[in-house]
């Protein structure tokens, strides 16, 4: 598998570390235990196109949101996490 890092270009799988589904959002502080349980433990476990968090650990250390098909491993989009490249926010 090769992932096109939006900052570095196309790189080999070994440079990246996987975290998992990017869909669950960390609940706000007072969301309650059930919401956090859902966030931490339950997964859609998509068979098909899924948005995922990958970390370019062996490269620029950016967290990426990768759109990938879990049936074929085909990657259709890669974008940086909100805070990667945030220096350009509002600039």
């Amino acid at each position: 598998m090769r992932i096109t890092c939006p900052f570095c270009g196309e790189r080999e799988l070994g440079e990246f570390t996987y975290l998992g589904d990017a869909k669950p959002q960390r609940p706000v502080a007072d969301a309650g235990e059930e919401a956090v349980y859902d966030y931490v433990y339950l997964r859609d476990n998509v068979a098909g196109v899924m948005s995922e968090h990958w970390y370019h650990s062996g490269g620029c250390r950016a967290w990426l949101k990768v759109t990938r098909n879990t049936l074929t491993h085909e990657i259709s989009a890669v974008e940086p996490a909100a805070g990667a490249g945030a220096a350009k926010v509002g600039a």
Partner: protein
Amino acid sequence: MADFSWDVRSPLDRALVAGPYGAQGEAGVTLTEIRNFDLVQVMARRGKAGEMAKAAKTRFGVAAPDKPEAVGAADATLIWSGPDQFLVLSKGGKHTIEALGPIFAGSASLSDQSHARALISVSGEKARAMLAKLSSIDLHPDVFGVGAAAATSMDHTSVTLWRGADRGGQAAFNLLVFATFAESLWHTILDSAAEYGVTIGHSEEF
């Protein structure tokens, strides 16, 4: 009162043995450790990429790289190291973190990496063949031209790699490797290069 000497020791001090190594005959690979440099990581603060760039331009006279490139200034090389950040590499004492602090005050956070890395220059006819054993990125001259840089990995270890000016008609690559990994990676580099014949040395010249 005791007399202290604060000797500087490169992390490759013990491992590097100057001279020929590996296959006999004309060396296909030249490995040179560059010693005595300052290296400062410059990271833009949130929303301050523009200000940081401006500050860099003022100090170095060149635009700071905002993509994987190494940009040569008069007395420094600015090497992209990730989104919103770059490294300032200079001869020891030129652009120390103390000197750069005021320049980037308010626009960027600085972190001294001068001692965190070892700098190795790789050149020679077989440099690419040797690097192909260590690096997964494409170093073809059309793809990785002079000034191209990459934050990448070798032997599962993070490195910063860029192509400097050609040397004697041959491409020259520079490698910043983490200091505590340096000796280990050095041996791996030697193993990879041995079949081509190696000339080993160190220098304070960039």
